[in-house]
């Protein structure tokens, strides 16, 4: 039996590291890189929810993460092609 605390603390570590990387990570002047860095934090949240047996919340989090990433990419590419300052 694997200790559940391993997954829990890995999740917390990934969430904090991911949010740090999103806030002040390397090359975050590019909004695409910043959007991709949020994925690290959301993997951490997925591990935490997995430890708490929140199955439905985990599935919804995965679905909404994909949709939010698509919406942000659409907004970023639209803004860049319009020549706005991103």
């Amino acid at each position, binding site marked *: 039996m694997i200790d559940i605390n391993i997954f829990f603390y890995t999740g917390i570590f990934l969430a904090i590291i991911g*949010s740090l990387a999103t806030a002040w990570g390397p090359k975050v002047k590019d909004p695409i890189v*910043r959007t991709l860095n949020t994925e690290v934090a959301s993997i951490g949240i997925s591990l935490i929810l997995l430890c708490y047996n929140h199955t439905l919340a985990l599935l919804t*989090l995965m679905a909404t993460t994909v949709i939010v990433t698509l*919406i942000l990419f659409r*907004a970023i590419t639209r803004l860049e*092609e*319009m020549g706005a300052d991103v």
Partner: protein
Amino acid sequence: MLVPEFVPGIFSSMYLPAIYAGLIVGFIGLMAIAMEKRDIHILILTDIVGLAMLIIVGAVGTDLAEALILPGLVVELAEIMAISEILISREMHKIESNKKKMPKNASIFPLPLVLDMEIMTTSSNFLALVLIGYGVFLTGFTGGAVAGGGVLLYVISRKSRGLPIFVFDGISGVSGISWCLWIIGFALFFIAPNLWLLSLTLAACGLLMKVASKLGLIGILMREEFKRE
């Protein structure tokens, strides 16, 4: 600290680290929002604050947490959709007021993407009907996701090109009705607890319509991108 006896011991031992992690992540996100100037970056960073909210709510560790996480996620999704649309239209106004030339074909994909699968033209109606029927049978959040998948398939497929504007308004109306159903079910749960089955069904049907209509709206939003040659 008072812990109800139905919370497992392992969850109550994980409570404090999760709360502190949530506070740290939220603090990092808010500090970054305070230091950032450009709007699209602030929009991306609100995602991090939403994730911090998820940790803190999820740390409760009972079914209540799960029931609170689901609406939180859906509301966050709707909020990010709305704010990104507002940002795009505001930039358009700025560029137009500066009398600059506006590039015409701004799109989500850098290359033209044509979804030209045979299943889109031959059996889209049947597949959408099966998915919506199964979703209505399931009810609740899962049913809403399945039925919404059916609506999404129908909207994206070739058959329904040129959807009139009142369909869009109608979907918004259905969304309002479903909130009413959900709130009535919620209030009935406390006013008349012996009607719990009725209020549960009301809330489940409201949630079904809510999620299905939201996925349908996303489909309408994305269809203009898919149709581009």
